[in-house]
């Protein structure tokens, strides 16, 4: 099953690095948006996901804020 996974990050956020490493290690393709540089992505994250924290991970109709390995595993069906 291929899903469109988007992850919104800041360069200084350790949980963003952990989340990306987890996605990489599990062969999940994703699009990353650095919300420090990408203002449009920042607004998209705030408005579409109504989140003001990183990492925000969005896929299909689901989203999660923060990095919780067990929960992400479940949501991605790993």
């Amino acid at each position, binding site marked *: 099953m291929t899903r469109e996974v988007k992850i919104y990050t800041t360069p*200084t956020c350790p949980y963003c690095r*952990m989340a990306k490493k987890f996605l990489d290690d599990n062969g999940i393709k994703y699009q990353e948006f650095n919300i420090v540089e990408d203002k449009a992505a920042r607004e998209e994250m705030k408005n579409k996901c109504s989140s*003001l924290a990183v990492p925000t991970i969005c896929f299909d109709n689901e989203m999660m804020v923060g990095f919780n390995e*067990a929960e992400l*595993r479940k949501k991605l069906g790993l």
Partner: protein
Amino acid sequence: MYELIIIGGGPAGMTAAVYAARKKLNTLLISYDIGGQVLWTSGVENYMGYQFIEGSELMQKFQEQVKQFPIDIKTGEKVSSLSQTSGGFEATTDTGEIYQARAAIMATGKRPRQLNVPGEEKFRSRGVTYCAICDGPLFAGENVAVIGGGNSALEAADDMVKIADHVYLVSLTPLTGDQILIDKVESASNLTMFLEHEVMEVKGESRVEGIKIRDLKSKQERALKVSGIFIEIGLIPNSEPFKGIVRLNRLGEIEVNCANETSVLGLFAAGDVTNVPEKQIVVAAGEGAKAALKAHHYLQRLSK
């Protein structure tokens, strides 16, 4: 069955793992994450050998050193309870796994304390944050409040004055952090301090729009318009899984003696989760080493 289970993968747990591995103990390290609280630290300037290093980079180096040794590591699982068995100890994790060992070291560290005021939980990740280095950039050009008067709060305030429009620093007490940080924050032109003030409420519709604070002495209330609130009011020990089995002090820290022994034979503890004074990376690492050496000693006597 392992000889030793180390619970927690911060500086104490990882140092314990290296010492245990060098004693050739059959060891398991279980931790939700690798690096613990150090991951939230932007820069470390007091870990010997490095004049300056990013917290996450230092923990990467710790991890590389642990991985030199053939010990089992489980991450992404949290130990939810620990119990005593006839042969030693049994750790159950939140994913339902059970691990057994003859001895255990608890090194689960601390986590951020919450304010426990109305609105805090509702607006978590919607303006309320406990990770200033993660979420700070989201509030560029906006008004924010930093809550707390210690080093973490001062560091967050110092980071935010550079990117936010205005920063309010709200502390229950006078500032308690290092003078070098106090000087930096006091010299910022876009920062207002409310010392000896308490936070009453976090307000907003779908996201944070402001906070209500109150002067402890005059009881005068004041509303501050902010879109972000950074809570940096200290830490509480991650000792809940060990509550029934081992003695804790009134702060919830695991009581250890100077050899890292707890109230239960064969059960050791190290780092910020314990009652050892001074929560520092270098102290936690040293305590982890001591705990592993003592556990080795205990296991040696046990097998005689």
